[in-house]
């Protein structure tokens, strides 16, 4: 069923009793052309674009838990394309363009809201670095505006501009950045893929990868063996575990990242703002809660929950930026497992095993990349070669020395 104002009216008159489920709940077939491991944002968008752009519909998406139970429902919903390095910028800008047309494309309200992403600067060198990044963005056709202190003050008068340690000097604004209702992204892609014939199989854990003579034959799962010609891995924080089933060792560590939401408030912050002196980013949801987060905890973890020192650090940074936050109560906090790569950039590539493809290493930037990640991964799977947009995200770049290290931290996953 196509969702529209007419379908809404029609269903209103029948008391909303005749809506059909947005996707089926099929049992797995014996085999598929393509199997995607991971029913999160990236896995579902991959299946969607494989079906829509490449005409492949004999596809299964296998999800260990329920649909969208991982990082697609655990992030802080921010979208932006304010990167600097050549390998990154065109990719994230393509993602932004897909976001802009996404709701019409998959006929689902994902509440894409281009409310602007503002990075604050607190010193002259930081302002210079932002000017450089902004220029890098504009070279690649991305919108970027360098704001001075007064322009920032006009947007957000309640920040602490004269903080003794970190006064606010200005900011870099990407107006096209913003937020998206994260769960709806998973649902929209799932519905779009399902309606094109893709089987989304939940509660189906992959326990092994069957190969012969360097070629993938299928996967062992909690619902039995499922054969496939091509296998795409999009398992985020569990990428190392899944890749190990194919005998691969990845340049990835899993780390926990926490996020928070406050009690509901009246309209307070209408965009996305990041504190430049610590790691803190905040926006306000349509329900009124402030959604915010900070850095990863810094130690390897699969626990989906963090420790108190990082909670304290994030709140301190927030209060340093917005003193009035001090009286706001935190409603919830949660954690997600990030596949932190060795250079802070992702991997979308084929592997040395015939028919095995890898999508991993998203660090904590995976949500904004969801459309382009699926789009590029679908292209890579369908054509058995990367698209030029993900040509820099190859697995062997670490061996060849072609890292994409935005932060310049080196091979230290917990610092990216």
């Amino acid at each position, binding site marked *: 069923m196509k969702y529209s104002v007419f379908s809404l009216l029609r269903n209103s008159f029948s008391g909303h009793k005749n809506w059909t489920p947005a996707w089926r709940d099929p049992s797995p077939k014996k085999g598929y052309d393509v199997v995607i491991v991971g029913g999160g944002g990236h896995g579902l968008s991959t299946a969607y674009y494989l079906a829509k752009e490449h005409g492949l519909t004999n596809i299964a998406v296998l999800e260990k838990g329920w649909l969208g139970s991982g990082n697609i429902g655990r992030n802080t919903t921010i979208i932006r394309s304010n990167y600097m390095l050549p390998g990154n910028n065109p990719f994230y800008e393509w993602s932004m363009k897909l976001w802009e047309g996404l709701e019409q494309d998959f006929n689902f309200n994902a509440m894409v809201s281009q409310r602007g992403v503002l990075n604050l600067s607190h010193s002259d060198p930081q302002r210079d670095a932002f000017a450089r990044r902004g220029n890098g963005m504009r070279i690649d056709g991305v919108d970027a505006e360098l704001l001075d202190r007064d322009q920032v003050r006009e947007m957000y008068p309640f920040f602490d501009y004269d903080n003794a340690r970190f006064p606010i000097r200005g900011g870099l604004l990407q107006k096209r950045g913003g937020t998206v209702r994260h769960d709806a992204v998973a649902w929209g892609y799932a519905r779009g893929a399902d309606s094109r014939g893709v089987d989304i199989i939940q509660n189906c854990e992959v326990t092994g990868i069957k190969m012969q003579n360097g070629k993938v034959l299928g996967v062992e799962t909690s619902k039995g063996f499922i054969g496939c010609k091509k296998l795409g891995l999009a398992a985020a924080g*569990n990428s190392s*575990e899944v890749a190990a089933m194919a005998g691969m060792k990845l340049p990835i560590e899993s780390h926990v990242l926490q996020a928070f939401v406050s009690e509901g408030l009246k309209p307070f912050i209408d965009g996305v703002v990041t504190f430049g002196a610590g790691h803190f980013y905040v926006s306000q949801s349509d329900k009124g809660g402030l959604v915010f987060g900070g850095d990863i905890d810094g130690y390897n973890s699969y626990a989906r929950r963090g*420790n108190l020192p990082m909670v304290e650090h994030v709140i301190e940074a927030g209060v340093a930026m917005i003193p009035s936050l001090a009286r706001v109560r935190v409603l919830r906090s949660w954690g997600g497992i990030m596949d932190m790569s060795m250079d802070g950039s992702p991997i979308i590539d084929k592997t040395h095993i015939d028919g095995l493809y890898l999508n991993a290493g998203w660090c904590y930037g995976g949500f904004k990349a969801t459309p382009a990640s699926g789009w590029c991964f679908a292209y890579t799977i369908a054509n058995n070669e990367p698209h030029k947009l993900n040509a820099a995200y190859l697995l062997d770049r670490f061996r060849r020395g072609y890292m994409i290290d935005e932060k310049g931290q080196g091979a230290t996953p917990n610092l990216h």
Partner: protein
Amino acid sequence: MLIKCPHCGTRPVEEFTFLGDADVKRPATTDPSSMDQWFDYVYLRDNPKGRFNEYVHHSGGCRAWLVITRDTQTHEVFGCVTARDWAKKQGAVR
């Protein structure tokens, strides 16, 4: 998360800085033929779900390098030794 430092006793996690995997082996040579070993050492990680040995620096305490064994699913810390004792156990130093 509490860590029992061999020098300082039981201390909270914020006193420690994490470096990462203590099971990677630094190649003994810089000969170009050892590049595969170096690649493995610098970039590839087992990233286990469960028991994990890792280097930590007691940066907010005695400033000693330590190795802790911890469960990455539960954050339970099983043990903590000095990096020197760890290296001795691995046979890396006498």
